[in-house]
């Protein structure tokens, strides 16, 4: 995998090559065409000069003087050649410059017409030629057809074009090199924040730094913030595991010590019962730990969406089976399509424990309602989940004690269950809270409020 810098440099080089290639081709064509046009105009002028200098001689044949106004016609090998031919193709006159050269006759234009052509001498020298076929009035009664032809060697023109091309390539190559150099300097500057992130992550890995510094360009602030969230959540998770393990190990020691003490006294009547009590206690401790919240708010990056009405329906169906004999009547009030942003297991734990308690304590009626709670700058709505029953309710002092006291592993009271403690823990981990009040049905109403998930917290 190429680095970002290499990819950008390769892309920019290809673009420059394409741009300069097209520019060079356009300039070259324009230069060549303009040069050729200028050559044609000059040839046209030379042809007119030949026509002006031509005079019929005494024998009634058209002739040209020895010396012409254009000196190049008189210099041998000057590259400018003139020729006069009869209609039959016989050479009547040829300029001195063409001495020893055989100018090809080429295509003869129709009478009165010009014809430009590219031809070449026998030695492959390229020529631009202009021919004109005329009917010359010798005297009042006679006129004869002639073909005037001027030709110019293209050697110097081609050398000029080649020189121009050489310069063009040279300049453009220099400009491209300067641009690429400037771009790579620019890139170094642009990549600096990324290298900074890389360095800081390295420092975090080696333990020299706690989190990313947060001083990054706007485009990278989100990435840095999410990485800090991830690092925090990983750190919190590892702290939590360590704390849980520590707590679990310590809390299991008490019942273990109790059992060891019982062993010494195994002949007592209530031995079985007391061992069972210790086993129940250990079981409760383990169950509590295993059912603790799966998600912490810091892990909101990876939370799923839970389909609330579907999960509540599954729970109610399940509980109808379990409490078949009691046959509680459920009044379910859940907004269709309501989504809870969190872990499915956590949601089922919240609703499952509350509904299970309600089934245990109710006389007949249970009401469950889940409504969304929205907030400013929220990226996912929160929810208010409440479960009411028509059972005996929870006395105020007991409710206060339940809400205030933190659930300590080794002080769970047998018979009180661990459901509410788990609900409280999970609600807290989502930044929410648990409240206990009196329900309209006559029993307890337990409400869990989970605040909306905002992008800033």
């Amino acid at each position, binding site marked *: 995998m190429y680095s970002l810098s290499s990819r950008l440099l390769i892309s920019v080089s290809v673009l420059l090559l394409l741009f300069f290639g097209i520019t060079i081709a356009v300039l070259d064509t324009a230069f060549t065409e303009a040069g050729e046009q200028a050559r044609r105009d000059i040839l046209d002028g030379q042809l007119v000069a030949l026509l002006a200098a031509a005079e019929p001689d005494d024998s009634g044949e058209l002739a040209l003087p020895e010396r012409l106004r254009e000196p190049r016609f008189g210099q041998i090998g000057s590259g400018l050649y003139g020729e006069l031919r009869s209609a039959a193709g016989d050479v009547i006159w040829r300029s001195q410059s063409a001495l020893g050269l055989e100018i090809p006759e080429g295509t003869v234009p129709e009478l009165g017409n010009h014809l430009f052509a590219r031809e070449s001498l026998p030695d492959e020298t390229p020529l631009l030629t202009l021919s004109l076929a005329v009917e010359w009035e010798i005297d009042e009664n006679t006129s004869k057809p002639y073909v005037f032809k001027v030709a110019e060697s293209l050697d110097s023109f081609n050398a000029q074009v080649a020189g121009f091309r050489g310069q063009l390539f040279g300049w453009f190559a220099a400009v491209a090199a300067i641009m690429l150099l400037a771009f790579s300097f620019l890139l170094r500057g642009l990549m600096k924040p990324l290298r900074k992130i890389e360095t800081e992550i390295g420092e975090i890995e080696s333990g020299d730094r706690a989190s990313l510094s947060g001083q990054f360009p706007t485009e990278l602030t989100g990435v840095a913030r999410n990485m800090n969230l991830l690092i925090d959540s990983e750190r919190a998770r590892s702290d939590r595991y360590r704390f849980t393990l520590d707590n679990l190990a310590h809390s299991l020691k008490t019942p273990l010590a109790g059992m060891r003490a019982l062993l010494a006294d195994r002949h007592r009547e209530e031995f079985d019962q007391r061992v069972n009590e210790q086993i129940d206690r250990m079981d409760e401790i383990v169950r509590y730990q295993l059912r603790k919240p799966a998600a912490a708010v810091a892990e909101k990056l990876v939370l799923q969406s839970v389909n609330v009405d579907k999960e509540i329906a599954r729970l109610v*169906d399940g509980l109808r089976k*379990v409490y078949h004999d009691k046959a509680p009547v459920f009044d379910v009030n859940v907004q269709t399509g309501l989504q809870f942003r969190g872990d499915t297991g956590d949601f089922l734990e919240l609703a499952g424990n509350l509904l299970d308690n309600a089934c245990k304590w109710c006389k007949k009626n249970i009401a469950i309602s889940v409504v969304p709670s929205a907030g400013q700058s929220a990226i996912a709505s929160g929810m208010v989940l409440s479960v009411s029953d028509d059972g005996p309710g929870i006395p105020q002092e007991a409710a206060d004690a339940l809400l205030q006291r933190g659930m300590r592993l080794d002080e769970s009271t047998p018979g009180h269950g661990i459901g509410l403690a788990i609900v409280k823990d999970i609600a807290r981990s989502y930044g929410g809270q648990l409240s206990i009040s009196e329900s309209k049905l006559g029993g307890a109403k337990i409400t869990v409020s989970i605040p909306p998930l905002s992008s800033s917290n």
Partner: protein
Amino acid sequence: MRLLVIEDDDTLREMLAKRLTEAGFAVEQAADGKEGLYFAQEYPVDLAIIDLGLPEVSGLDIIRQVRADGKTYPILILTARDRWEDKVDGLSAGADDYVVKPFHFEEISARVNALLRRSGGWASSQLDAGPVSLDMSRQELSVNGAALELTSFEYKIIEYLMVRAGQVISKSELTDRLYDQDFERDSNVIEVFIGRLRKKMDPDNTLKPIETLRGRGYRFALERNQSD
């Protein structure tokens, strides 16, 4: 009643089978998911106790398969996982109740009795039909308030018939459901027990609680009391 216990932990499975047998059930055991699925599909079973975490085929898959085959007997799941997610998955797959490990045997026994009674359409553990009353939790049969002395087999037969009050139960079904497989099957024994039960429950032959349908089997004939 014939129960199927599918549990891969040998100690737990054997302990459960032993206690359930002592409680008067005929018990089949399977130690892995594959064998369990085969038993659950092929054996005459009144209730299955299925552990969720099984090797080869998971408990959830067995439940789904059994329900897909149209079998309606109650299923009790055993799970070491106490999260509601697992319980709801099991109940949604077709189980009827759950027990979380570790458990007291009394809890299993109470759930099993409740599920069996429910499958026969009874609402409480006391089955009342006319003057006859059967207390499943105490395994006690009384007529007009007087408790009867029954042998274990006599109790098993009257319990099976009363739970399915009104249904015709063939002799072969009774033998299948009440005897362990290795017990020698002899349908005459059933006739003897039915005869004894009739004498104990209805010495004057006025109540006629157990009806014989020639060539088809027996039926508990008394009407269930309204409250049930």
